[in-house]
C-alpha cells in the first residue's frame, strides 16, 4: 500500500461485513465491532458477541479476516471480548433505520432493567407503523429476536429484543 494504513481505513473496509442473520446491517452498526488497533503484529480487530451462544460470531470473524485479506492486509487478528457486555443500545441510528426497513422492529431504547423485567415496551409495526402490536413469543427466529404481530395490518414481524 502507498499511504500508511489508518484505523479509519480498516473501519471503512469493515463496513462491508454484515450480520449474517440480518444482512443489511454491518458489524459496526450492530455494535459488535468494538475496536481496531494497528500493532507491530498487524491489524487487531476486537469484537463482542450479542448473546453468549450467538452462532454468527464465527461467521463474522471469518468475514472480517477475509475482507481485510482481500484488501491486501495480511496480518489480521480477531479478538473476542465479553466485557463490557453488548447491549442493544450500541446499535447505531443508521443500524436501527436499516433494521426497520428490513422489516424488523428495532429494540426499545435503553436496555434498562425495566424492559428486561417485562414492562411491556411500545413496539411499532415495521410494516404499517401502527403501535397496536402484541407479542406472540419472547423467542423468535434467532436468539436476539422476539416474535410480534400487528393487530392493524395483521402481519407478523420480528422485534430485535432489548438486551
Amino acid at each position: 500500500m502507498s499511504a500508511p494504513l489508518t484505523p479509519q481505513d480498516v473501519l471503512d473496509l469493515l463496513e462491508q461485513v454484515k450480520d449474517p442473520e440480518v444482512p443489511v446491517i454491518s458489524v459496526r452498526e450492530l455494535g459488535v465491532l468494538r475496536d481496531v488497533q494497528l500493532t507491530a503484529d498487524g491489524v487487531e480487530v476486537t469484537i463482542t458477541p450479542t448473546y453468549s451462544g450467538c452462532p454468527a460470531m464465527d461467521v463474522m470473524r471469518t468475514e472480517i479476516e477475509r475482507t481485510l485479506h482481500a484488501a491486501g492486509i495480511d496480518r489480521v487478528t480477531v479478538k473476542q471480548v465479553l466485557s463490557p457486555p453488548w447491549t442493544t443500545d450500541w446499535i447505531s441510528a443508521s443500524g436501527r433505520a436499516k433494521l426497520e426497513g428490513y422489516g424488523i422492529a428495532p429494540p426499545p431504547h435503553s436496555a434498562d432493567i425495566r424492559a428486561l423485567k417485562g414492562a411491556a415496551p411500545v413496539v411499532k409495526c415495521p410494516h404499517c407503523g401502527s403501535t397496536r402490536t402484541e407479542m406472540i413469543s419472547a423467542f423468535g427466529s434467532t436468539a436476539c429476536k422476539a416474535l410480534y404481530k400487528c393487530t392493524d395490518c395483521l402481519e407478523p414481524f420480528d422485534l430485535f429484543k432489548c438486551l
Partner: protein
Amino acid sequence: MERSEALFRTVLRLGDNSLVLGHRLSEWCGHGPQLEEDIAQANIALDLLGQARNYLTYAGEIEGKGRTEDDLAYLRTERQFLNVKLAELPKGDYAHTIARSFLFDAFHLPLQQALTKSPDERLAGIAGKAVKEATYHLRHSSEWLVRFGDGTEESHRRAQAAIDGLWMYTGELFAPDEAERTLIEAGILPDLASIKAEWDATVARVLAEATLVRPADGWMARGGKDGQHTEHLGFLLAELQYLPRAFPGAQW
C-alpha cells in the same frame, strides 16, 4: 483445597450445568408442543450452550493443561462431570421440563447476578453476558408454570406432580462442596445461602400465582457435584459425545 483447583472445579461445574441442561432442552427441537415453544427451547438451549462454551474455555485455561472447551465437553467421562443432578434428569412431559427449568432458572439468575460482582474478572465477564439471558429464561419458565398450574385440571395435576418429583433435587443447588466453600471464603463465589434466600422468594411468588403447593423439604439427593450421577447422565453423554468419540479429531 488449593485456590486454583477450587476455581477449576467450580468453573467446570458452571459450564457443566449449562451444557447438560442445554442438551436436555435441545431434545425438544422438532418435538415442541407448539411451534413457538419449539423455537423458544432451542433458543434457550443455545444460550446455555454459549454460556457453557465460555465457562469451559475458562476452566481449560485455569487448569493449564491445554484442554479446550471441546476436550472438556466431549472427552470427559460421566464421573468427571460435576453438574447438579437436577440438570441431567430426563425431559419428561412439558410440565416436567418447565418445572425443572423454573427451579433451575430461579437459582441460576441470582447466581449469575452475584457473579457479575466477583473479583475474578473472567467470571464476572461471562456472568455479565449470562445474566441478561437468564432473565429471559426465568421469565419464560415462570410464565409457563403459572399457565400450567392455573390452567386445566390436567395441566395443574401434571405441574404439581413435576414440582413434587423434582423437589428432592433442589437441595444440591445450595449445598456447597469443598471447592465452592473455598471460593466462598475467598469472596470469589457468592454465599449460596444468599442465593437460596432469593430462590425461596421467587419460588414462593410463582408457585402461589400458579396455585401450586410448595412440597415439604425432605431427603435431598446429592452427589452430582462430586461426579456421582443418576443413571440418566451416561445416556445423555452417549448422544452428546457420539461424534467426537466415533471420529476422533474430526473437524467441520
